[in-house]
């Protein structure tokens, strides 16, 4: 059953950056674009399950810190080897300065 979960405060994430969020035993990554739009993906790279939150966010892309797998964090699309599987994305919304993601 999908549900909206408060993930963080909007200011917790710097522009063009990512932070980790854990809920119910699952890891997520919360992104803030340079335009202050918020996005969420699974927390782990689809290549070798490395946490994406330590990776570099630039130009709409999150790059895994271990093997440089790259994803479009707005769509989850894998952008080439070594990542061949898209990362799952989650809807987000911001209400009164709190970022929510829809999980489940």
């Amino acid at each position: 059953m999908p549900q909206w979960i408060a993930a963080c405060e909007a200011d917790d994430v710097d522009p063009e950056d990512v932070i980790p969020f854990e809920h119910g035993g699952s890891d997520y990554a919360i992104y803030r674009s340079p335009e202050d739009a918020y996005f969420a993906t699974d927390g782990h790279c689809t290549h070798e399950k490395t946490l994406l939150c330590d990776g570099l966010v630039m130009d709409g892309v999150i790059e895994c810190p271990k093997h440089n797998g790259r994803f479009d964090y707005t769509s989850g699309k894998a952008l080439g080897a070594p990542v061949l599987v898209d990362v799952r994305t989650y809807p987000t919304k911001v209400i009164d300065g709190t970022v929510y993601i829809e999980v489940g």
Partner: protein
Amino acid sequence: MPGMAAAPAIVIAGAGKCGTRAAQEHGAAAARAMLGGTEPYARVPWFWTDQHDFTLQVAGLTDTATGEVVRVRPDGTEIWFGLADGGRLVTAAAAGPGNSVARDIRLAEMLIARRAAPDPAVLADPGVALKSVLRSPVAG
């Protein structure tokens, strides 16, 4: 050997730097060469190793540095930058828990690739994001 090309699963590229990304890039370079390309392989060497809960990452060739700058981050992690004569950034290294140094070393690698010569005071200042240095005119 003329007429031969290798597309390896893992490679060593310059002073022991190796890894799967280098292997991937070497494979692409080998393919370009087989198709008649003459562009030399010139990516910045990059290396990481996990040691228990810590990861060491190195970008560039440490033996090309003649000067050094150290950035001490608020979490206590030290990022070591090696500079060549003239101030050009040629190498960077750091060790920290988990993958906590990966982002800074990746940005340093991109600065090295651009042959940037950042102000040493800026490199030493943990209050200045390396991403902003990369996007400054000094980064080329």
